[in-house]
């Protein structure tokens, strides 16, 4: 469990990092918190020629509320979890972060690292999808933004090109009518989810509007439950019958894969339960 030899670069600016990525292209890997990459390198499942360590780039560690919540890609998960800004403005992100690994993992792991790694069962991609977050991607030609729905492309695959760097994520500040929740089932505390569900909606005169429901662990990427979202639009999520039906619709089109921890059929059934519960937590926890 020792990595193959690699070259190591430690840029101190995004510009420098992007320059290195352009130069080395596919032969390079970006090292953020290393919580997924380093085990893969130690097992020699990943053997990059060059490791570009972005931990010394100060501009990636910005966490600010300024026309929205902006979390730099290099912000540690633990920093985000404990941030008063996150807890005040978008507390559901903290709710999701509590399920990410353990203290030691969150102390090293970064928000951007988890999003860029794009594990289909991970919490951060799922909550960002539910919150309609926008990813900022920087390349040689400058910055571009990618909505979460277009960002996740498959297992460990995102819209970030080989010569680009994910530099941050932007979440709009939710209004007073906003409600949200995150729930998941895992084998043990801190494991990747068997299934996770994130819900975000606005509650206007007792009716749900702008509903977004994201599920993890059920496909090759986090997915939105479109039929459930449409069904809920204008309906009262306080009504258990409505929540039940939303859960049923969310699970109806899923065809999750099986593994040693749970068959796909389990994940499908529990998706319905978790959507129901997330909705309940979102509107009853007020």
């Amino acid at each position, binding site marked *: 469990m020792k990595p193959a030899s690699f070259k190591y670069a430690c840029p101190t600016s995004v510009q420098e990092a992007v320059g290195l990525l352009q130069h080395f292209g596919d032969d390079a890997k970006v090292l953020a918190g290393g919580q997924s990459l380093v085990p893969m390198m130690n*097992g020699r499942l990943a053997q990059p020629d060059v490791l570009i360590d972005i931990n010394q780039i100060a501009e990636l560690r910005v966490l600010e509320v300024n026309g929205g919540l902006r979390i730099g890609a290099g912000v540690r998960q633990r920093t985000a979890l404990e941030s008063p800004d996150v807890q005040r403005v978008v507390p559901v992100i903290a709710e999701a972060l509590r399920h990410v690994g353990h203290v030691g993992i969150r102390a090293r792991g970064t928000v951007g690292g988890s999003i860029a790694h794009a594990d289909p069962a991970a919490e951060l991609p799922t909550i960002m999808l539910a919150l309609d977050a926008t990813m900022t991607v920087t390349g040689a030609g400058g910055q571009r933004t990618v909505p979460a729905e277009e960002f996740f492309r498959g297992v460990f695959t995102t819209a970030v090109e080989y010569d680009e760097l994910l530099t941050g994520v932007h979440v709009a500040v939710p209004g007073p009518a906003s409600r949200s929740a995150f729930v998941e089932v895992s*084998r043990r505390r801190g*494991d990747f989810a*068997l299934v996770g569900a994130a819900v975000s909606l606005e509650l206007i005169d007792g009716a749900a509007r702008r509903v977004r429901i994201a599920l993890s662990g059920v496909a090759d990427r986090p997915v939105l439950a479109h039929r459930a979202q449409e069904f809920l639009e204008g309906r009262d999520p306080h009504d258990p019958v409505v929540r039940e039906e939303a859960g049923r619709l969310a699970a109806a089109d899923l065809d999750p894969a099986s593994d040693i921890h749970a*068959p796909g059929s*389990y994940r499908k059934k*529990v998706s319905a*339960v978790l959507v129901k519960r997330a909705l309940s937590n979102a509107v009853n926890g007020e």
Partner: protein
Amino acid sequence: MTVTEPLTVRPPQYVGARVLRVEDNKYLMGRGRYLDDLALPGMLQAAFVRSPHAHARIASIDISAAKALKGVVEVLTGAELAKMGTPLVADLQREEVLPVGKELLATDKVRHVGEAVAIVIAESRYLAEDGAQLVSVEYEPLPALVDPEQALSHGAVLLHDDVPGNNVAHIEFDSGGVEEAFAKADRVFTKRFHAGRQHAAPLETRGVMADYNPGTGHLTIWSSTQLPHFLRTLIAPHLQMSERHLTVIAPDVGGGFGLKCHVFVEEAIIPLVAKRLRRPVKWVEDRVENLAASGHAKEIVMDIDIAVTNDGRFLAFRGRYIGDCGAYSGYPWTALIDPLAAANLLPSLYDVREMSFQVDAVLTNKCQTTAYRGPGMAPGHLARETLIDDIAHELGMDPVELRIKNCIGPEPYVTVNNMRFDGGSYVESIRKAQELVDYDRFREAQAAARAEGRYLGIGFSPFVEAGTWGSEGAKALGFPAEFYDTASVTVEPDGTVTVTTGTFNHGQGHHTSLAQLAADRLGVRIENVRVVDGDTSKAVWGAGTYASRSAVVAGGSILYAATEVRNKLLALAGSLLEASPDDIELYDGQASIKGVPEKSLPIAQLAGVGYFGGALRPEGQEPTLSATRYYDPPQTYSNGVVVAIVEVDAETGRVDLQRVVAVEDCGTMLNPLIVEGQVHGAVAQGIGAALYESLEYDESGQLLSGTLMDFLYPSSTEVPTIEVSHIVTPSPVTEGGMKGMAEGGTIAAPAAVINAIADALTPFGAVIRHAPVRPADVLALIEAGRA
């Protein structure tokens, strides 16, 4: 076995007290030295090339690219190793058992994923792994056997040409009247239970370092082992060396749990390579190797039948045990370590006079099986105790009362298969646990919760634990050989005490608990006692630490040796104080005349006289104060109960383990703190068996849970506070009254948790037939019950 009378008039100063562990400072200060911390000048590091196939012929191995790599010193294949040393052959002194050999490195074929085919020795582990990547092995895959029943079936491919039917042993026992008892029973209950494939998963993996001195011809082996002396004795012939030229040192060891009470091929290979290269060589196992290629445990397919009268009296037990033992027979205990131990402990604490069993130890294309805390006993217990709960439900009886109705009395008892229980609190401990959990109130709360659609459950799991592993105990469990231990006790010239023992402390607190025994017997303060172990050149020979044996075997041998030295001290004190030795008391570092405390001498002064006092010594007493004794104890059986309370989420199948209560009776307790620590750890590992741990292979023999992302064991977030309570029923047969303990929690907790889940799911008629129970399994049980 006669038991010596307690020698001190006063209550013991240390035995039974909550003495804080004297060895912990080292660990807490980060000054422990584990195998990976060791380094020698010029040391090389090794990495193995391991098979990606479950079963394949080795067509060719090309090591040229690896050998050419800068920094690689040597690359050796099985053919070369076969010239250097001999295979490990596991065998038992029983006619039913076939010997099974394991080459040091595979030569003609590989039999499981992870089996080593070559070793690369380089200037660093990094370079060794680079070299390993360059070794090119051509395999011709063979059909893989992953189902033991299929492996047993006629015409199955053979793993080893000399093991027909892939069966290491077929062993039967029959008390004579079993079939008659089943024929006349009112009811017969039957269950097949499949226990999961587990792994000890010690925090520190295995590891070996070796250094050969060509000037002296002496070879030193450092190994993360539980049995340094036994390792030396067992490995010497394979190295073609004599024991006088071998030193084995176990440094600090970060957990063994039975895995490290074996001898592995790596423990022969690394010394052989060090000797050949004339340079120190170290190999530290990584986690992937540890999971795939060290030792698995406890996977048994069991069919249990119980003959019962309508009023719930057990008439007879019948068991069939098919061990899924993996590709080799673990050395030295053999593949029987799980299935035979499971079978022989079938009666447990039930008064059953008719019993039969059949055991098969079947080879499959998986990692070999080895001992792991509660070997065999734990899965066997799961099968029996879950069936007993099923029977209670079927008969409409309370599961606790059904057990008590069939339980043996507190006096010593000989089981139908001739295990000699040394008495215990079998019923009393169950009643105590019932009180502690407030059983009646729980049942009320359970009914109220059910009315709200919440599912609470409680599971009782009373156990008898075959610990100690002296010759008689090993034979009773089916493993006939001689097992004992030795200890030396020396009062040094300054009156401090050095104890050496052939057992080996690797986390159990022996440096405290064994010192407590010696301190009391010699009347010295515990801070003046040092326990030395883990080094064949410093401690007396012994079989090592495993099978909950050390308190009894090391304790007994220390008591014997300390008594001899004590008698010398008494004679010296009698002579110096002008009193009869019978009237001398040794306590707290002082020798005094009983009832005349002002007539006393420090024991340190007696020691000085013992070494340098010349004519002051009683006539005929030799100088020095030292004794070495051995002890081979009779059988001991600790007992107790584990109770679990769960709430099951009927929509997600999640099990919330809310409460665990354990009652433990291990006879005389040397140190309740240490006993409780053992209960905590054992129960935690039992929770792993119930809910998490499973090494999964696919149909082609690929290991699917090859990392700790997929082989799950409980961490602090999954283990609730474990409430421990004690009953003390001293053993009437052992020196000191101790009974071996440390595995009861692992034996009993799985059934406690699974019975609690089944109890919670009573409205769905759930019968649980395998472990671990995942959320998906719980949901499937609920859906089956609703259908």
